[in-house]
């Protein structure tokens, strides 16, 4: 097995916010009937997470489940655990209509951090999503686009947001965030 390397090798930069790649993150796409208690039980048996509410995040001891669509979850775990989670989920969900796939190395994860409304300022320039705190609160997953590419964004707190995008556009998203947070380019919208 070759050595795992994240999309932009942990690059980071500082403008009016700090932009950093999160490095290696375990991510597993799980699809199935979220309204089925057998599905919920199978997922819980492996992740020890309940199912998240619509657009929400459910956290267990070490894993997190992000709501991605009415029939899709994203499991976030340690990178080295992802393959074991796939095996365990596949076994737990056998007999049910489902899909489980390790997407850890097909995604890039970024963290944008800063004080005040700086994080929302930097992000709002590159997404059409309404980022006002009363519309997109902390802990809510919003799938949208960042400039020209799809991304899922979530504010972990007012001072930090996490962005998940396709690995193939990792450099693009990193450059985009760096440019968006260039000192002196604050819009002052929030």
């Amino acid at each position, binding site marked *: 097995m070759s050595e795992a390397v994240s999309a932009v090798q942990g690059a980071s930069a500082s403008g009016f916010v700090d932009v950093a790649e999160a490095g290696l993150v375990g991510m597993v796409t799980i699809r199935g009937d979220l309204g089925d208690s057998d599905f919920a039980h199978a997922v819980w048996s492996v992740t020890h997470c309940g199912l998240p509410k*619509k*657009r929400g995040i459910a956290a267990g001891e070490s894993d997190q489940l992000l709501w*991605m*669509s*009415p029939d*899709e979850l994203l499991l976030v775990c340690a990178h080295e655990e992802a393959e074991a989670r796939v095996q365990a989920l596949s076994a737990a969900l056998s007999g049910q209509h489902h899909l489980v796939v390790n997407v850890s190395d097909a995604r890039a994860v970024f963290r944008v951090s800063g004080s005040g409304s700086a994080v929302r300022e930097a992000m709002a320039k590159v997404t*059409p*999503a*309404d980022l006002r705190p009363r*519309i997109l609160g902390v802990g809510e997953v*919003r*799938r*949208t*686009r960042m400039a020209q590419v*799809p991304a899922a964004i979530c504010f972990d707190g007012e001072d930090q947001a996490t962005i998940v995008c396709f690995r193939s556009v990792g450099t693009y998203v990193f450059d985009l965030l760096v440019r968006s947070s260039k000192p002196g380019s604050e819009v002052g919208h929030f």
Partner: protein
Amino acid sequence: MLILKCPYCGVACDETELHAGGEAHLTRHGPGSSDADFEEYLFMRENPRGVHFERWRHVYGCGKWFHAARDTATLEVFGTYSAQVAEPPKDVRAAITAKVPGWRWRDLS
């Protein structure tokens, strides 16, 4: 700018997060149908100035198809609703009637 609420995610989506899917509630006429029905299905589309029903896909989000009822002249949105229906639900039709009394679209009113 057109903003549509995805009935599956519940988020207000900018039109650039969506993909337009053309006219809603078409009846598919395939192999074995009459030439007239097949032509109607393939080519004949409404192009109203006013109330219209369309299909949209939340392509930068959940990926689901849904329906929207809107006014093509004012961009006012009367409602969005599930893709799994063959005609607009009562509440959407009532919302249109409240704003545009006497509206007609194909054989709906």
